[in-house]
């Protein structure tokens, strides 16, 4: 099965359409409005995206989807990164829609996927706790049997878009055994239930809201378990895996836009009587930025193709893309601020939006250090 990089005609059209839509619908004035907003979600935008079929892009038609593939989804997400688009698309589609598609029962799919696809609901994942890491040992949040169902208690941290959400996919410990990866269960919880308290976190990247969410004896039905009872950990790993590919695609969008803004500035800004792009040290930095983004795109496309094809290289490809795109987006947005000089350090200039979104994406589901360690261990295992 050959992995093909680059875009086919249909994909090019999708990309152009997405870029045009976002240019019109999410200009920086809109982005900044959402940054200032506590919830950061525009129901109007949400509906328009649903009309274009974005939320259900990869869902089967029977669930109101467009039956497109994972690679197509990353094309959309790349454009969302390029536009530093705020709002709960990532939370809803990537963190909740995909696992329901992959692991939900037919009833669950029928219940949730069409609502996601038609823009009726917003969802998010509540998995992380105090450590901020997705690691089974750090998962202490409890679900205790209560009647036919369960009662949830504990605090989830770094929950994206919680205040916009109608449902939260909550990872809870349903039993404690020697193996911390055993006994974790995922529940689809109505976010408007009594006993759920949300506290805005004061975050750096205001285009992606995060919350601490406290649950006090929140009831949930056993029918809302996604996957097997006690068997939630592999699902969380799969979420992390696909989210990492998607975050990489966003980072390619973020980094390329930051680079393009910077190159344009180098051609425009005059100092010492010439455009500053004449200066070789700045040129060379631009060249390095270009190379970083070309390789980022290459790895990201390879990773997305591998995920789509369910290739055996997919885990390695995704970790490589996540690590490299994260390092690159940090380099490129840092250089972007530097090459813009004072103006790039202002709040009013857009460069910091890219700087901060890049850093959110790099950190989420493990930064470069984390993924390099994963890669090293995998390379070692492959040797044996």
């Amino acid at each position, binding site marked *: 099965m050959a992995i093909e990089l680059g875009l086919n005609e249909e994909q090019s059209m999708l990309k152009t359409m997405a870029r045009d839509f976002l240019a019109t619908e999410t200009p920086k004035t809109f982005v900044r409005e959402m940054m200032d907003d506590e919830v950061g979600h525009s129901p109007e935008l949400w509906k328009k995206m649903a009309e274009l079929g974005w939320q259900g892009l990869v869902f089967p038609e029977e669930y109101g989807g467009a039956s497109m593939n994972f690679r197509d989804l990353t094309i959309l997400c790349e454009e969302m990164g390029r536009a530093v688009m705020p709002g709960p698309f990532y939370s809803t589609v990537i963190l909740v829609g995909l696992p329901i598609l992959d692991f939900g029962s037919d009833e669950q799919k029928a219940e949730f996927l069409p609502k996601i696809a038609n823009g009726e609901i917003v969802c998010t994942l509540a998995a992380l706790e105090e450590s*901020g890491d997705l*690691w089974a040992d750090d998962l202490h949040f409890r679900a205790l049997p209560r009647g036919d169902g369960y009662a949830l208690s504990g605090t989830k941290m770094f929950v994206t878009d919680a205040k916009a959400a109608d449902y939260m996919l909550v990872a809870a410990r349903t039993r404690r055994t020697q193996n911390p990866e055993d006994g974790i269960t995922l529940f689809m919880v109505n976010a408007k239930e009594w006993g759920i308290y949300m506290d805005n976190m004061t975050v*750096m990247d205001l285009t992606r809201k*995060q919350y601490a969410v406290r649950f006090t004896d929140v009831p949930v039905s056993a029918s809302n378990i996604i996957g097997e009872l006690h068997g939630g950990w592999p699902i969380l790993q799969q979420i992390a895996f696909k989210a990492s590919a998607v975050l990489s695609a966003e980072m390619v969008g973020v980094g390329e836009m930051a680079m393009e803004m910077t190159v344009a500035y180098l051609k425009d800004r005059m100092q*010492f009587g010439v455009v500053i792009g004449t200066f070789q040290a700045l040129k060379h930095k631009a060249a390095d930025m270009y190379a970083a983004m070309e390789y980022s795109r290459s790895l990201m496309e390879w990773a997305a193709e591998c995920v789509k094809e369910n290739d055996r290289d997919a885990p390695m490809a995704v970790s490589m893309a996540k690590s490299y795109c994260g390092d690159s987006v940090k380099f490129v947005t840092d250089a972007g601020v530097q090459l813009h000089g*004072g103006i790039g350090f*202002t*709040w009013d200039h857009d460069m*910091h939006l890219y700087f901060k979104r890049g850093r959110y994406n790099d950190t989420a589901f493990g*930064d470069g250090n984390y993924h390099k360690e994963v890669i090293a261990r995998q390379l070692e295992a492959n040797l044996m």
Partner: protein
Amino acid sequence: MVSSEPEKLEALREEVRAFLRENLPQKWGTPAYEPLEAGSEEQIALSKSFTKKLYDAGYTAFGIPAAYGGIERPPQEIAVIREELRRQGTPFPFVGLGRLVVDTLLQWGTEEQKKRFIPPILRGEVYWIEGFSEPNAGSDLAGVQTTAVRDGDEWIINGQKCWTSGWDYGEWGFFLCRTDVNAPRHRNLSFFLFDCSTPGFSRRPLRQMTGEAHAQYGELFFDDMRVPHENMIGEEGRGWYVAMTTLIAERGGGQVSAASGETGGMGLGLFGARTIGGVDSLIELAKKTKHYGQTAWDDSSFRGRIAQIAIENEAMRAYGMRLGKMIMSGSASGNEASMAKLTWTEQGKRRGDMVCEIIGAYSQLMRGDSRAVDGGDLVYGMLMTRGTTIFMGTSEICRNILAERILGLPRQ
């Protein structure tokens, strides 16, 4: 190298320690110390009074002639004082950018100007601000477009300045402007001091990417502001050369900095910033932050990076000792300050990035979030470092200076 009067030096050491015990704020130097907000009224007031106390005690103003209020002491005593001040992390004296004015006046001021302006600066009485950068004159400082037109004994100033730190507390300022529209580059500028209460002067905040409500930097506007001719420093049309002295002082290479044993420091402001990113605090952070069952300190790559920062800190300190000696003996050009500035700020970025890697998901949390590590100072610091490599001469300008003015490579 040992003093001939060790008892006297030990007594001085005890005196300084006692002074600091009495005059530094409670809990100073401990994690429990709550720094005052940078640029807040309390911070400015405390800075002023502490500067005065240090001066009255005879612990500052070295290297400045007594005629202008300078304090003369044997070098061994100065060394003891510096050592004790530094041991306590005592904030660098001078409120605002006063020390730059001192350095500039010492080289370019008239006798009258020196006598008028230097002593109040040493006593911490006036908060000084800078008017160099303009929207279209950043790295290319010689391209400033603010104009001054002579009118009798006064100059009429029109234009705009940006990236002024302490903009809202400025009582006096200095600025560079164009006094001759026809003269060649570098020969068309003059350097002035001005009183911020002059009519025609206004200011407004410039919000930076760190996002805090109280802007650290601001913009200054001159609208037919009149400045008396006696406030011009150096000759008319030679302001570029005067400003070079100021810039060297700003990057930590001036005489006052050298005499204070400070090089490359960026004057974080008196009592306005907790010392962040010191190596001890990095190690403590790495030791207490756990990911996937091991602390960051357990990871040899973090240990190596922290050790590298410690090495560089000592390298900068040792270089400062050499440079201070060179400056005092007149064998330094002043351009060395660009190196200290470059190194200090580029290291700051790496340090900021590393800290964020260590704290992981918490690198998203800013000041104002109760869960933020160190109250959000670490992440704030990481963002601030992005400005430090731009202001007061970008890293690129610093490298140009080293290559051209020290190594003698040709200008472009």
